[in-house]
């Protein structure tokens, strides 16, 4: 009798095939979409990436942060600083910003990990506030009122505006694919098994030899670096930065949390579904302004109370679908025709 572990299922094979077709269609978007379509899609990608990263943090590692705007803003400010003072090409500044933010996250983790549970959440928020207030004291980057990217740096990306739009769009697509790939690979590695064990029971995970704190710190740092890269991209596209926009708790945390909760927390498909719902609602209800935000908060509360696993959680419970090959199945084969599967 032999035993092997597989991740794929029939639905994940279909899912991945659909993803591949979708990716090709989206990569070809400059051929079929207008300028507005490309910008909207790039925004959607940014939110999918941010929400997926927050989901990794909160849904898998149990680190509920309400301060991820710290890294969005840090990445954005680093991009502006590298570009304006270092003359670094803007596209090269994105990964650089990610690396430095990950390095900054190390001492921050040492500090905020002293707080547990709910207190951790507010602690991360204070860190983000410190970053925001510090940024508004940096007068060379415009202080509280912010600054713009110089035209010369933007032209250096590509000479024509159309080509720049295309390149920025592909960068957004590449970033979101890289983030999703990173998360899938992480979850399939032994760290992924550790994370799922932590998600289900920290105590049981510890008893089985998982170094819970180390795993959590690793996830926190990786997430910080990746979040900063997305932040750098968002403000590269916006061309203008200010402390209030870059470190906005509404834009980079409230929306991201609502997206993840509505789509389904603790599942990689959740943030994708949530982002689609979020943008669909935004396109139809954006005129309502503050009432829209109010409704979003109410929907998130209703989902948390009625279906805490979100839309995708309901889909999984009813239909058992998974798009990404993540669920471990141990298959014991006595003979090729009689195999029994055990889900893990």
């Amino acid at each position, binding site marked *: 009798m032999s035993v092997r572990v597989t991740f794929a299922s029939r639905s994940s094979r279909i899912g991945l095939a659909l993803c591949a077709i979708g990716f090709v269609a989206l990569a070809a978007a400059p051929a079929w979409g207008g300028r507005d379509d490309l910008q909207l899609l790039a925004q959607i990608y940014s939110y999918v990436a941010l929400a997926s990263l927050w989901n990794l943090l909160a849904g898998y590692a149990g680190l509920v942060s309400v301060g991820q705007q710290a890294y969005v803003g840090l990445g954005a400010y680093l991009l502006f600083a590298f570009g304006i003072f270092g003359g670094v090409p803007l596209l090269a500044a994105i990964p650089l910003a990610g690396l430095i933010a990950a390095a900054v996250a190390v001492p921050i983790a040492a500090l905020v990990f002293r707080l547990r549970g709910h207190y951790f959440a507010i602690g991360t928020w204070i860190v983000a506030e410190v970053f925001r207030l510090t940024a*508004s004291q940096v007068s060379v980057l415009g202080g509280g009122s912010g600054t713009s990217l110089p035209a010369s740096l933007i032209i250096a990306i590509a000479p024509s505006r159309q080509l720049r739009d295309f390149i920025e769009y592909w960068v957004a697509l590449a970033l979101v694919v890289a983030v999703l790939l990173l998360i899938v690979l992480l979850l399939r590695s032994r760290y992924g098994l550790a994370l799922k064990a932590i998600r289900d029971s920290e105590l049981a995970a510890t008893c089985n030899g998982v170094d819970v704190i180390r795993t959590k710190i690793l996830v926190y740092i990786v997430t910080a670096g990746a979040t900063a890269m997305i932040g750098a991209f968002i403000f590269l596209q916006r061309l203008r930065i200010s402390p209030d926009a870059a470190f906005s708790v509404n834009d980079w945390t409230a929306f991201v949390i609502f997206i993840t909760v509505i789509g389904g927390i603790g599942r990689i498909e959740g943030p994708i579904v949530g982002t689609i719902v979020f943008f669909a609602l935004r396109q139809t209800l954006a005129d309502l302004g503050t009432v829209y935000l109010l409704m979003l908060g109410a929907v998130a509360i209703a989902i948390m109370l009625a279906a805490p696993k979100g839309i995708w959680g309901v889909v999984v419970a009813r239909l058992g679908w998974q798009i990404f090959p993540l669920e471990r199945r141990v298959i014991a084969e006595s003979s090729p025709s009689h195999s029994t599967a055990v889900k893990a």
Partner: protein
Amino acid sequence: MTDWINVILQGVLVGGLYAMFAAGLSLIFGVMRLVNIAHGDLIVLAAYLALVATQTLGIGPLVSLLIVVPLMAAIGYALQRFILNRTLGEDLLPPLLVTFGLSVIIQNGLLALFTADDRKLDAGALEVATVRLVEGVYVGLLPLLQFAVAVAVIAALQFVFYRTALGRAFRATADSPQVAQLMGLDNRHVFALAMALSLAVVAIAGVFLAIRADFDPSIGPARLIFGFEAVIIGGLGSLWGTFAGGLVLGVAQAIGAHINPGWQILAGHIAFLVILAIRPEGLFTKGRA
């Protein structure tokens, strides 16, 4: 010299207000391990309720406490009984996300009703009255009153917590909800009473905040953060520690503001982070947090 005495004195007096922000937070965390992210927005909600009360009834802000305090307590009871009780359990996420959603709802609800304009409660002659302590050192009567109220609030909470049947119920459910229930306590009711008490304190804090300075719907989260910092600086599980934490935060902010007006809030956060780094269990407790 008198300059610095004034700065520190102002910091201490504002610190009383921060202690009131913190006391309600500390109370519900102690009883049901819940951190209410909407705490700051509820403070602002209380300020707006007082605004409506003073404008429609033509009463002073201090008299409006007679309406705002019971009203906020009722809101707190209902909130806990009908929504927050359903989120309590092993998982930390539901209460956090629900109170976070609540925070966004209150902020945007207030924004829709009252716009983003600055508001303020007018306390009349009380606002400008001052008391001379020694030559060159003056304090406003209002900050002094606010400080005295803060001391009274903490003392009253301490009394309720350790000297009354209600306090015994709070402490029993905090220690072991299951055993408390076996002894005939209705935990859902006890938790709801704790939230009612927390929001009664929030109401007092909200009214004083609104007399002291301009407010608008967006300032809630910062009040939550001040309250939270005071709790951690003072150390979990001690009401007088929380009070002292508020004073430390107030003084740190006052010193920061005196050096550079842009550094007021930053100085408070940095004081908090330094204490978190060197003494995470808080300044005024013996045990670990």
